[in-house]
């Protein structure tokens, strides 16, 4: 009993912080989402409008379009990061000259603020001064212009996200790979398993929890991408990279549409939870129930 009380006492500071910086803001956003509120309207006050904002979201073609491009962005970005991150993690498991330096350099994007990442990629992709359009033109005769081509802009935002966040995946998977016991691998080799079989039947199942944790984190992060895309493309060309985070930003901040923007935020939070839950039930729950 005493240790239980001590446990709660030790947890209390964290719970209090979580309550004030997590729960209270969420409840406030939820409250605002049921109001018509634009401080630069003729009537700048808040007026309760029931679920009008939520009804509006359903018929908002722009929001639906942004959901579509966001889903595509999240899928390609997270899958790419997982594959590249795993390959790099495997590479770092081996010894090679300059490994320490390469690993440090490889981790550098992770410590950069997203807005800086966006600035760097903007400089690298601007047609007149950017190294990437310059090289693509010289090597392949291709004129990269992300202000003009929707497909190019979309792909570049994915590459930028992969460049920024793959190190996180790599580091997580290195930790998982390092912690694997050697016995199953030795036994598999003795039994004559090849590399592909070892990967599918031993490595992958054993690092599955780490992979899923990484996917959850990246999924949630990618769904709320704002800064770097805003800096790189502003959501353009047109609405090609107006991902939900950018859409919400533009509704809430420049347009000061606080009520409607809050409703979209709540919807996106709900969709994120649903996406994570679906991922959980499809990948983890079946295994757990089999064991049970």
């Amino acid at each position, binding site marked *: 009993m005493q240790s239980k009380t001590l446990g709660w006492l030790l947890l209390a500071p964290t719970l209090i912080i979580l309550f004030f910086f997590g729960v209270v803001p969420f409840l406030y956003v939820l409250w605002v989402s049921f109001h018509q509120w634009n401080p630069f309207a003729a009537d700048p006050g808040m007026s309760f409008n029931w679920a009008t904002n939520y009804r509006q979201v359903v018929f908002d073609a722009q929001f639906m379009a942004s959901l579509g491009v966001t889903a595509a962005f999240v899928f390609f970005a997270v899958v790419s990061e997982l594959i590249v991150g795993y390959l790099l993690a495997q590479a770092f498991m081996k010894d090679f000259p300059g490994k320490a330096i390469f690993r440090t350099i490889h981790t550098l994007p992770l410590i950069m603020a997203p807005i800086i990442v966006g600035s760097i990629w903007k400089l690298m992709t601007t047609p*007149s001064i950017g190294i990437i359009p310059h090289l693509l033109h010289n090597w392949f005769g291709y004129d990269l212009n992300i202000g003009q081509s929707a497909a190019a802009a979309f792909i570049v935002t994915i590459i930028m996200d992969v460049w920024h966040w793959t190190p996180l995946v790599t580091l997580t998977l290195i930790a998982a790979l390092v912690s694997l016991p050697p016995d199953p691998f030795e036994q598999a080799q003795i039994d004559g398993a090849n590399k592909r079989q070892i990967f599918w039947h031993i490595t992958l199942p054993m690092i599955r929890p780490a992979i899923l944790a990484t996917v959850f984190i990246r999924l949630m992060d990618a769904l709320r991408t704002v800064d770097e895309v805003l800096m790189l493309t502003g959501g353009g060309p047109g609405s090609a990279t107006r991902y939900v985070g950018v859409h919400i930003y533009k509704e809430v901040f420049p347009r000061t549409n606080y009520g409607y923007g809050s409703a979209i935020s709540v919807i996106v939070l709900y969709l994120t939870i649903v996406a994570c839950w679906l991922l959980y039930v499809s990948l983890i729950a079946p295994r757990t129930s089999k064991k049970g």
Partner: protein
Amino acid sequence: MKIANKLGASVLALIVATGGAFADDAFWAEAAKPYQGVVLHGVTESTPPSNYVKDVLAPEFEAKTGIKVEIETTSWDQMYDKAIKDMEAGTGIYDMVYIEQDIIYAYLSRDFLVDTTQLLKDHPELKAPTYDEANFTTFANYFKGDKGDLFGIPMEAFIKVYLYRTDLFNDPEVQAAFKEKTGKDLKPATTHEEYTEIADFFTQWGKDHDEQLWGTTAQAHTGHPASWYEFFESVAPTYGVYSWGIDAGNNYAASVANGGTMNSDEAKAAMKWWLHLRDVAPPESNQSTWTEVATTFAAGRAAQGLVYGENAAWVASDETKSRVVGNVGVALPPLSDGVLADAESGKGYIGYYDGGAFGLPVTSKNKEASMLFLEYIAQNEVQPDWAVAGSRITNTATYDDPKVQDLDKKLNGYFTMLKDQGRLFAGAPAYPFHAQVREATAPIFYQILTGAIDPDTGLDQMAAKAEEELTALGYRK
């Protein structure tokens, strides 16, 4: 004897001058006494004039008063986000906020700002002998309330001008080629047709001579409001479409059907003209905001363009940043028939008179100390160097300073144009819903730029969307 007289007169003049300076210094030191230890916080856009405030005027003020001033210079979007959130929430983080001319009406409608005229009446001890509202140019009128009181201390003002490369326009070989191609003499355009001819000519010239040269700049970002502004504030007015095509006197109508002009034939012609210019502009144009347009011109990549005046000085005179120093000419933008007459009569305007002021948020905890700083930066004495650094003029006396007149020569008469013809330009219309209408219509505007929607349909949709937004905001009944 004569030498002795001259020497004596010089010494006397020196004593009077330094005595005046000492007297002024004494005022700042005395007035600042109650505010020792205060740190003022300001937020502004990172521009040459704002950086001058941060790097030069703030330290000077601190040296004279002991009041520390921290100016945060950030991006245009962030500046607004921070200022509005602070004033809306009443947190009082900022003691001074940059107010661009077009946002002042929104701020006034929300009573965000302190009436500086009244503040000085209430606190005469704060009134600096060198500060006088009468020192300002007429640009200050944009920051006045209904009763004529000042709600923002002007810190920059400039016009968006037509810059052209004098070295190219005066090159005999280029002139001959232009004459051969068009049958006309090469000179700065006065009409849209002439401007297009010149733009097409130089873009082709660049291709033919394998040069990184195009015929015009275009502030045509496909995801940033800068392109929206270029069209509605700089291009549409030259076709006679004023105030964004919204008629405030007619229930804020935007569509032609309801009495507005946002989708008028003139607006559609303006859009098509501008889209053509974008197509013959350097490839970076569809990623260019106001800053990149100036950079493109300074890099020598465009023969002409509409460039914000705040950049004119460094483009024309700073060899560390610009490749076209000494080769920059200024002219009025090309116009449709009747637009100049509209501007002369006050019915319309020919381009954008941009600028901004520093305002005191009512939520500031250091209003009096902030007022001292704003008075400091408004003095005639600090203006000339600031004008040279940022090509901005807010005080009438600044035009006569030798340093400014020297720079005016390098700029081929930019300051003279600002002084004599600035009246033909205008700031943004007095709308309190500035960013709201822009953001509501911008997605359609960007679709026009990408070609997803044709210009005629796009402008029709924008006019309808603007009216829908104005109705939702409660301005349109």
